[in-house]
């Protein structure tokens, strides 16, 4: 386990923004969820790394980066920030030993239209971090047939979860376990065992059900330089998730980005 963690912290105020590292989107911040702070080792590569905030993205994941027909007019002073910190394990941002590696911000004026989306970007090399991940060597996604194959993969995992059987997921996510192992020094076997137990426990929770995979509402998008397929729906939710509970809560989500690795589709992030 690393002693230092690279934590990317992003915030929004009176706007929405999607966070990407090296073209891999992983979080949409909204007015109801305004802060994201997470380690990003698994997204980093040797050489320059690109950090992007897509402020006021399009209405769906597939149109997130598309220029919007209408400008964004903040109703109140708006802002979006991202900063990368090197943090000792257990630290909070203001603690000693935390180093800020960069900070970028966008500020919007209330009532002043801006062309949307607004891209806030920063590139930097981070010595000592990043790998040439195996999924980077795979073929790009370029056909409708690929989309269907990805849907089938997710459906296979979903059906397994519904039966309380994590094995289809674990088999399809082997590359991800390897990626996380490289990124954070985790043991693949023990991680698989932990996730296996976790999925089995979840499946026995009262009322737990997996959402059906609806190809119509899916909004698979190609990202990561064409190498990844982000398995989300039009509401930015992961396709692989449990149904909403009566209180509106979605108990479990399994974000999945699929790549071609060694000629087969694999969940890699």
């Amino acid at each position: 386990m690393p002693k230092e963690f690279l934590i990317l912290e992003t915030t929004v105020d009176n706007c929405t923004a999607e966070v990407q590292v090296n073209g891999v989107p992983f979080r949409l911040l909204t007015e109801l969820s305004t802060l994201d702070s997470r380690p990003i080792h698994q997204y980093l590569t040797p050489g320059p790394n690109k950090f992007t905030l897509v402020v006021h993205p399009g209405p769906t994941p597939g149109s997130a980066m598309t220029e919007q027909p209408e400008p964004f007019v903040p109703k109140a002073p708006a802002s979006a920030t991202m900063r990368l910190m090197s943090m000792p394990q257990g630290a909070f941002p203001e603690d000693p030993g935390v180093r800020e590696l960069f900070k970028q911000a966008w500020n919007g004026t209330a009532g002043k239209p801006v062309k949307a989306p607004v891209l806030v970007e920063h590139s930097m090399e981070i010595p000592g971090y990043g790998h040439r991940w195996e999924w980077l060597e795979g073929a790009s996604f370029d056909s409708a047939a690929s989309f269907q194959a990805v849907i089938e993969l997710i459906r296979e995992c979903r059906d397994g979860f519904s039966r309380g059987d994590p094995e289809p997921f674990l088999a399809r996510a082997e590359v991800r376990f390897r990626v996380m192992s490289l990124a954070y020094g985790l043991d693949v076997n023990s991680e698989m065992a932990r996730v296996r137990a976790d999925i089995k426990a979840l499946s026995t929770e009262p009322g737990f059900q997996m959402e059906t995979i609806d190809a119509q509402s899916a909004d698979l998008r190609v990202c990561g330089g064409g190498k990844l397929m982000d398995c989300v729906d039009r509401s930015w939710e992961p396709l692989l998730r449990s149904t909403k509970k009566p209180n509106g809560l979605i108990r479990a989500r399994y974000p999945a980005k699929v790549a071609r690795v060694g000629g087969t589709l694999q969940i890699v992030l």
Partner: protein
Amino acid sequence: MSGPDVPTISALPAADQFSKSDETAASCGSDNRLGGLPPACPLASTVPCDIDELVLVEIAATRVKKYHVHHGEFIEEPPAPKRGIRLFDVEKQWPKHPTLQVVGDRPGASSPTNILASVSAFATCGPTHASVVMFPPPGQSEISKTVPAGVQDVFTFEAARYQSSNSAVGFFERFITWGIDPVSYMVSVTSCGNRLGAPANGGGGLTVEVYPADQYQLKVSIPAKGKVAYSRARTITSSDDPGEVNITDSSKLEGNIGGLSFERSDEFSTDDGLTLKDEMKYEPQELTFEFNHNGQSGDDVSVNITKLLKMLESAKEAIKALKDFLHDWVPQAGFKFEFSLSFFAGDIALAWGYKEHTDWRVFYCLSGKFGLKIFSIDLSLSFGIQVPGLLVRIEGTVGGELVLESQFDFNTPDSPIAINEKVELAIPAKVKGRAQAGIGWASVAVEVGVRTGFVTGASLTSDSNTCKLKAEVKWAGIIAYLSTYDPNGGQKDEEVELAKERPIWPQEEGQGEFKF
């Protein structure tokens, strides 16, 4: 409507003043009060005995200045015209009405309200008949007299207002006179009602209702913002073993709220044995409370100031106590709880009292101007919670204000007091969270429709006998969705109650309402 002068009365010689000795002269028919019951004496129908008229006129010259109200201030008016009523159909310059309502001071006041009674008898059937009686309020002696036939007889009496038995002890209620019963004076005339074949007046009566002459004026200014800051700093130093941290703590509390600066000292311990110190001391500042009774200050209003201070204190203490309702916070993540509060800050100007209309009526005159920031809060907090494998720091802010502005003037009996101002506001909490650095991470979201923050409302309303200023402030608590992630196991969400709900104002039944 205004009554003309009364030449038939003013031209007469000085009024006869009745005395107790006159009572014996009214030995026949003196039980006939209002309603004109037939006279009790069995008189021969060939003897005329009849009343021409009874008039009651307020002698305006004996009254001091008159006022109307505007935006909570009394404004002096020109002298009012004479006001009076009549019983029958002779003195038509006065309205024919059974009741004359007036305002009157307490007995012996320098500016009494005097009533001039004028009675004319067409004829009397005998030396003891055709009489007039003035029935005063209980406890005073009645006055009665035989009315000479063929002349207009006049007399005056003081319409005094006796001490009210109002025992209300509310915020403003001690001085409230709205909806009380008037003191009544009745003037009754009796005769046989025999005009030898012509239409006759058997008798009847008129009433004078006396309402308090007191005029009240209240101005309250409550200062604006105050601040309370409570913090418990966390410092962390790296060591060779990243699993170990050194934590030091400090705490402070300081502030000024509602014009009160404070210091106090008490200590309490947390579960981990750390001691937090809480210091407060209260000292009133800048709060002004001006109360005038008939243009003079001097009534003891200290009780009201005390109540006002308690009110401010109560709300502030309730908000301060919210920090104790944060859910299972853990000290390792630090702690901050700061708020600026305005509660009932602003200005109230009120003027009220009974006022004589130009006709026979008296009405309750009420005027006010309210500019109140009922509740304004700017709260920020942070605290930690422990979830499996993660220490998460929650940060929240709640900010907003509820304002009540109103002004009203009720200066006429034809537009009865009707106030209905209502405002309400939800002040939701914005909440976010982050986990300490590590492989897993966390985020916090507040979903639409989930209760958070403050819910406030205020109203200024009236009913048939009172006005009410009512406010309600509730802390709805904070329920949030806590998401925890790990890179292999995905995202798990759960609903967590980060802070419990709690009433801020009122905390006791009836506390949140002021009547006036």
